[in-house]
């Protein structure tokens, strides 16, 4: 019982430290003992229109102008069929720009759901300031969700694909 009291005290102290310093997540490990605490984010006024992260089954918001590319049909219906799966790794945009899903207008898409990728596999192109940047998977696994469509504007940190890692 004394142990539990000490634990509770420690947890309360940790929570206080987290609150005072605006921390959201803390994990402390001492040998076999481990404490992990996660706070809800401070409540803000209604969220801004363009969250960087799209929830699964939802078309990615990104910058909400109509897609500029040829292929206007989103491929996010594939995302809709996947459920929310917390074990999926995310491939996020490292830059701001316009995403292209194919190497050239007539080619096949770089990736489809179910495709196996390696770290060096090019998953898409993001054009920024007239430079075509090849975006690599940087992970080994299988594409499970595609959250963006050809010609879509994407922002930094936006989730493009979800991958079931090996």
């Amino acid at each position, binding site marked *: 019982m004394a142990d539990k009291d000490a634990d509770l005290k420690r947890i309360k102290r940790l929570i206080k430290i987290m609150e005072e310093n605006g921390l959201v997540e803390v994990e402390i490990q001492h040998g076999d003992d481990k404490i992990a605490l996660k706070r809800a984010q401070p409540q803000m006024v209604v969220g801004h229109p363009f969250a960087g992260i799209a929830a699964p089954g939802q078309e990615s918001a990104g*910058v909400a102008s109509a897609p500029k590319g040829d292929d206007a049909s989103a491929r996010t219906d594939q995302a809709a069929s996947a459920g929310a799966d917390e074990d999926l790794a995310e491939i996020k945009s490292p830059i701001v720009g316009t995403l292209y899903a194919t190497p050239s207008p007539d080619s096949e898409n770089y990736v489809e759901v179910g495709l196996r990728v390696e770290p060096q596999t090019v998953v898409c192109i993001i054009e920024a300031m007239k430079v075509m940047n090849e975006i690599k998977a940087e992970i080994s696994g299988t594409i499970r969700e595609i959250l963006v469509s050809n010609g879509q504007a994407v922002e930094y940190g*936006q989730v493009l694909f979800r991958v079931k890692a090996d």
Partner: protein
Amino acid sequence: MLSRILIANRGEIALRIIRACHELGIEAVAVYSQADKDAPYLQFADEAICIGPPDCAESYLNIPRIISAAEVADVEAIHPGYGFLAENSHFAEVCRDCGIGFIGPSVEAMALLGDKVAARKLAEKVSVPVVPGSDGAIEDESEALKLANKMGYPVIIKAAAGGGGRGMRVVHNDISFRSAFSSARAEADAAFGNSSVYLEKFIVEPRHVEVQVMADNEGNALHFYERDCSIQRRHQKMIEESPCSAIDKHAREELCESALRIIKEAKYSNAATVEFLVDKDKNYYFIEANARIQVEHPVTEMVTGHDLIKWQLKIAGGETIDISQRSIKLTGAAIECRINAEDPQKSFAPCPGTITRYIPPGGPGVRVDTHVCQGWTVSPNYDSMIAKLIVHQQTRAEAITTMRRALREFIIEPIKTTIPACLEILSHNLFVKNKVDTGFVERNL
């Protein structure tokens, strides 16, 4: 008129620009770093684009990312705000090369005013007094002594390669000049590996008085009178006011006219601030010009009734100045206190953290410009200014009373702020009597 712009900045100035845009019917696109993703003002932007991680170099200072965002958002122009890329002529050039308007001066005008030596020469060309000094480094001690006598004591010997207050010697007379000159050279050599020194007249107890100007693309320029920014700590302004009650009408006219001559000679357009030092004998000297809108612009807005950000947007949209100088009047007195997340008890060390209780002041004559709200976490990644508190009343004395009241009402907890330091200054006898200079804070706080 512009129809859609991107704001390459954050915090209170981003919100300020969004507000001006919306009143003019201009769409405002905001950019943000991941540290600012929950900023409340983002919801007021017509679009918000994440451009990078918290680090400035990867976000607000990252030209490719900002230009990319401007392109995908299809904006006509970029407002750089203040700080960050606002006075970066390379950024202005990239905008120009990419066919994106820059809400500010031309690349050339910005580069010219940004070069202190060139700006000084330009001022001299249009008969604006500058701080007297040697024309570059001075090697010969007897030459230096002659110049010191010509300018009049006190003088300051400064290391040409110097900074941080090192390699500087203030000299009051001929007797101490020789040893001061050689020791300044020795210190410069030791500290910077370069013994070159130059000479400047040392302005005793100066006031920092700056003039707000606005020019269009057709060479028309207006001034919006001056601001007194003498309350500074380590060259950071703490409190600003308008008008400067230590100068008379004639001096005001001269200062403002001088500022306009400089701006016109530089073929400048959009907003600028021309800074002067005014000594205790009311002599004034041009020191530099800032090619951007400044933090303390609200002070001028309150006493003139003009919206300076709207002027910037209109001019960038190609409009010309259609009002006369005579129509701009100074009414009453305004004071601004910068509220920073700093601990005055710990040498103003920055105090990042989450604000759990935030209640801003209000009432007649009170304006608060801020991006902060209850629950906001002040990030260590950016500067510590969290709000600007501005008051405007019919007289300076009444403005001081209102400012004291407003400061006392302003609740920001639990982080430390400069509110108590501002209150101390506002209650100080010398401030009330307006017997201050740029050394006031360091001497009295």
